[in-house]
């Protein structure tokens, strides 16, 4: 946990980079709906073309944009074969032992692989053109309406930032407690599952007790510095939707509608 990867964000000034992160996030969610609705070759063609347009707009090098696909092609191959060979169908094209190649199986396999590939590339484009901070802020704005059903969005945002801060600290503590308990005879590396389960007790309990104590201390420190919990906190410049952001969301919605109604 100490080495948090820098993320796949690639700074730039392309159209997609400048688009409001919230618009990108909403766009991605609508795109997912369109992918789930897709079922015909025409539908997939439309989606793939659209992903191509997104790639062009993002200014990312093509090789980089499809990198996640090259890492996972084996996984795709396995999924495709599993679907193609094990799909029970009335008239298989070819059977041998427990395998039966069928038309429906092939179509099902292609469906699953295409959907996953489109989702993965779309998500990768979002992550490459949007910094983690921007994504967090966009989530916060997206969840803002949840305030009306009594979900305290600002508090959740604060919880996230405190948690980010303390993950490395607590991870170190867990490691320390693990070593201390090993010295006292706990068997973390036993091959018996029962021993493993039993060894959790001396690890998890001190970890939780410590975390509860630290939470207390942190609360005291925050109150001593004047944190009262009410009022508006500001983090970075507020961004507002512009015409191009509305346009982007509308185009996504149109594609989704075409997908559901026409194709």
């Amino acid at each position: 946990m100490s080495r948090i990867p820098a993320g796949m964000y690639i700074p730039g000034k392309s159209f997609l980079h400048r688009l409001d992160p919230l618009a990108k996030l909403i766009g991605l969610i609508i795109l997912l709906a369109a992918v789930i609705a897709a079922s015909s070759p025409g539908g997939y063609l439309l989606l793939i073309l659209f992903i191509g347009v997104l790639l062009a707009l993002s200014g990312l090098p093509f090789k980089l944009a499809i990198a996640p696909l090259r890492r996972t092609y084996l996984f795709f191959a396995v999924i495709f074969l599993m679907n193609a060979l094990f799909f029970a169908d009335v008239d298989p094209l070819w059977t041998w032992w427990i395998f039966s190649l069928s038309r429906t199986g092939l179509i099902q396999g292609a469906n699953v692989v295409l959907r996953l590939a489109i989702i993965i590339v779309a998500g990768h484009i979002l992550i490459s053109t949007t910094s983690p901070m921007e994504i967090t802020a966009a989530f916060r704005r997206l969840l803002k309406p949840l305030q009306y059903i009594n979900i305290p969005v600002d508090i959740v945002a604060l919880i996230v930032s405190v948690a980010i801060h303390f993950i490395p600290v607590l991870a170190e503590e867990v490691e320390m407690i693990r070593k201390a308990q090993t010295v006292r005879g706990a068997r973390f590396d036993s091959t018996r599952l029962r021993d493993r389960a039993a060894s959790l007790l001396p690890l998890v309990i001190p970890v939780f007790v410590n975390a509860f104590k630290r939470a207390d201390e942190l609360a005291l420190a925050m109150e001593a510095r004047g944190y009262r919990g009410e009022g508006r906190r500001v983090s970075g410049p507020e961004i507002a939707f512009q015409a191009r952001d509305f346009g982007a969301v509308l185009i996504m919605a149109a594609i989704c509608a075409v997908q559901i109604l026409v194709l």
Partner: protein
Amino acid sequence: MAVRRLTLIAFFTALIAILAQLAVPLPFSPVPVTGQLLGVFLAGTLLGGRDGCLAILAYLLLGAAGAPVFSLGRGGLMMLFGPTGGYLWGFLPGVYLSGRLQEGNQRPGAPGLLTTAGATLFFLGCIYLCGAIQLSLVTGYSASEAILAGVLPFIPLDAAKAFIAAVLGARVKKIMHAGGLLQSCAVNSPEAVRD
């Protein structure tokens, strides 16, 4: 909300993220056992419905924003919207219902192990339901295929984890009460005032 309660929830979020990184490789399966479920089960038992929900919500947001907090150091939006995302979304209704079932009685030693274990199994059911629904939506599997591929193989181990979480939760709660830690966190909280 009391600042103490807030920091406690934040620490719980961090703990879930850390527990998710503890992986025990299994000799017979490529999927290792991780502590992620243990962490979320304990959130329901120790934080209760509403606060458990906040901890999970923060956890999912952290992961969605790309921090490697999900099991085995994974993270990113695709974990939530991909085929297995439902198992993560399921934490939210699960922790709420399980926490609610275990609230009610705040005396030390309550609720009993049986209530906690039952609520945790209920929690697991919520996760499976959401997981199977999203699996079938994203991959186009039928309901029975989704259950066969995404639920049945995991039931024995997950049920074992639920039981371990119930035992651990009861123990930690007892120690917290003995050390006065839970009480101090409950002071100033709206629940305490209402009671």
